[in-house]
């Protein structure tokens, strides 16, 4: 690095940013100072870029689906697949520019204030945020939400690795509670050009859950939901694309299979109870396909920072996420999408779950030692 960026140099205030770009291009020649003299080749950049790659199928499908849903709403037929994609791409691109622009600017600035290297955490959060918001959200709102999530959700705790809540979901929660008009109703999940309105009856409706809760889902079949040709947030609709990402995350071990399995099991359990008790007549497996459940389970609940640390805690965390999500759907039609709230709530309780698991482990160990 040039001397003017070093401490005492004229451009020291750019140190973290320059360092970030430099280390992006090449692995620096830093050597180990103490302890282990050799190190594994893995670093956080590599780990986190894999999460982005895992989410890419969902993002690409989502872009196509934005175009497709627009086409359906406008009553267009016979449009080329690439045209749909291009429409969606142009819709989603500004979201990405705002998400990364605002988020990274804050991240770079706060790294400089803390005198640290820029952490890669926002690489992932910034990729997720456009995937979980309505595609037509005004950009200034998105910018506000990103700033809220990054500053209050992450930086005040000390940056990536220190946060309590998943930053991407925090951005969505901010939008959900601050601008509910833009986050619910039947039309917010479909992109329109300026001045356009939907051609009535030409499309099946909003994201199944947004129309006053789960029962509104009747019109949409299993395969539509599984493939993802339904309206919804950009990334959340296609279960099959999300499963592709899940396979990569599980294979590399970045995401915990315990959390994923726990979440699925929890959702099935409550879905089944709900069905058996006559609260709903939706089969429990359909709960896995609705709304943001799959995306949340695979990409949000498994965030290693905000989920549970302990192996046993991961099961509990996963189960709670799944159960709470379906519970919110069954009992509170006002909050159509339970996944976001379920994960944020479980994020809040993750340290407590860990505390209980670790305490139980320690007392068990002490008893064992005494017996020995």
């Amino acid at each position, binding site marked *: 690095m040039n001397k003017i960026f070093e401490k005492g140099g004229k451009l020291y205030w750019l140190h973290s940013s320059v360092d970030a770009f430099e280390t992006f291009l090449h692995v620096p020649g830093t050597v180990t100072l*103490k*302890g*282990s*003299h*050799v*190190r594994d080749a893995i670093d956080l950049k590599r780990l986190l870029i894999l999460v982005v790659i895992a989410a890419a199928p969902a993002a690409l499908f989502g872009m196509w689906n934005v175009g497709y849903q627009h086409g359906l709403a406008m009553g267009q037929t016979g449009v080329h697949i690439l045209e749909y994609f291009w429409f969606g791409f142009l819709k989603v691109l500004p979201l990405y520019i705002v998400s990364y622009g605002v988020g990274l600017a804050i991240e770079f600035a706060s790294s400089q204030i803390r005198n640290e290297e820029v952490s890669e955490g926002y690489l992932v959060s910034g990729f997720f945020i456009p995937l979980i918001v309505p595609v037509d959200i005004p950009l200034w709102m998105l910018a506000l939400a990103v700033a809220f999530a990054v500053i209050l959700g992450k930086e005040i705790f000390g940056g990536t690795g220190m946060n309590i809540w998943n930053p991407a979901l925090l951005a969505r929660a901010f939008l959900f509670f601050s601008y509910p008009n833009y986050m619910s109703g039947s039309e917010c999940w479909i992109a329109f050009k300026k001045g356009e309105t939907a051609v009535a009856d030409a499309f099946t409706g909003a994201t199944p859950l947004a129309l006053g809760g789960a029962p509104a889902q009747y019109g949409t079949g299993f395969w539509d939901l599984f493939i993802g040709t339904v309206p919804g947030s950009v990334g959340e609709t296609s279960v099959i694309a999300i499963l592709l990402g899940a396979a990569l995350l599980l294979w590399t*071990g970045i995401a915990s299979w315990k959390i994923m399995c726990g979440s699925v099991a929890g959702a099935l359990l409550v879905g089944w109870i709900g069905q058996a008790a006559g609260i709903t007549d939706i089969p429990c497996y359909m709960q896995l396909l609705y709304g943001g459940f799959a995306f949340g389970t695979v990409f949000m609940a498994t965030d290693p920072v905000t989920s549970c640390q302990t192996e046993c805690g*991961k099961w509990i965390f996963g189960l709670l996420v799944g159960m709470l999500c379906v519970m919110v759907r069954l009992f509170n039609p006002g909050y159509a999408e339970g996944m976001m709230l379920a994960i944020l709530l479980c994020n809040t309780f993750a340290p407590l779950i860990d505390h209980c698991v670790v305490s139980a482990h320690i007392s068990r160990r002490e008893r064992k030692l005494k017996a020995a």
Partner: protein
Amino acid sequence: MSDIIVLKRGLDVPVKGCADLRVSKSMNPATVAVQPGCIKGLLPRLLVKEGDRVLCGSPVIADKKNPDILLTAPVSGTVKEIVRGEKRKLLAVLIEADEKQEFAEFKPGDVRSALLSSGLWPVLVQRPYGIMADPAVTPKGIFVSAFNTAPLAADTEFTLGQQVAFIQKGIDALAQIAPVHVSLDASVKDSAFAKLKGCTLHRFQGKHPAGNVGVQISHISPIRKGETVWTLPLHGLAAIGKLFATGRYDVRRLVAVCGPAAIEPSYVETVPGTPVSCFAPFYGNTPELDRFVSGNLLSGSNVGADGYLGWADDQFTIIHEGTEEELLGWIRPIRWNRFSTDRSYFSWLMPWRKYDMDTNLHGGPRPFLMNDGYYAKVLPMDIYPVFLAKACIAGDIDKMERFGIYEVLPEDLATCEFVDPSKIYIQDCIAKGIDLMLKEMA
């Protein structure tokens, strides 16, 4: 014979440069250093001055708190120089060795006094804390690991297999203080050490750190608060045996000279305190590009080109400094020459491959991001490594105790540090935590 204790978690770091099973040289270094810094917990008081004559086994340094604890000369000769550092801290006493070695004679009587007067006492390390053992204490057990699993570690069957008689003597002596436990490698058939008597034999099987005595203790008899155990390396046990068999202080040992940068890695016979320059034939003409590690690559100490072989080490590792920048390193799908335990690289496809590693950190320091399980998969102990490391960083003694600080030394968590994608110096965190405990408990 006890059952085999199989440790499933762990990691053998596949680094190139394992020493051939042959003794390429018997060294008689012209100068040998006695380094008080190698013994944690020792406050050195100098007993000699420049020009003094010492025999092999003559006292050179005593402990200020307990003057019975001595460090003695590993060779006979003349005190050449007293090396001091900042604030006149005693770093080393250099002894110019005689051509023909003369030994101070010891009359083996009481075990403790024999060990103290001969200077072999500091070979005993107390756990918890990993400090020099206190002669006034009787430990609940004395633990020895008869095998190493650290990367490129010396093969004890080769280095000490011939000295079983001495090791037996050493066990007989130490058994008078406390029960002795010896851990064997279950994967070695017909181990030379399987015949040892007067001790409890345990068999372990697994990857590194299965050979670490701390890991073994946690599976044999975990240390509770208030308990102490002693540990010593196998070559220390042999040296104690030699003391009682011959009446001589003899710490000559076979040392594995190894590492990816070592030329024709093999074993040499030498004494602790041998200058690094004596290993010149193994590292060629560019010592400035290499790092010299006394001990293994995971927890040894970087002694530098003008340093000395450590007191308790039987391994000397030479590795290239990884100061080169690697263009588009982390983003390349395949990095053929790099090892990683992570599935995002492809090392798992070739489990047999050995790698030419260097000292590059491969990333920048970050806070802990991956969760505990990522680290626990290479640590075969019943503790939560991340929770313990965080308690140490926070300096929370209560939590450190609960998370098992009494059972670990930094070296036990070395594999966790190796795999850490956040590039945290975990061993250093643990060491600082232990120092804090020592300060607060004193």
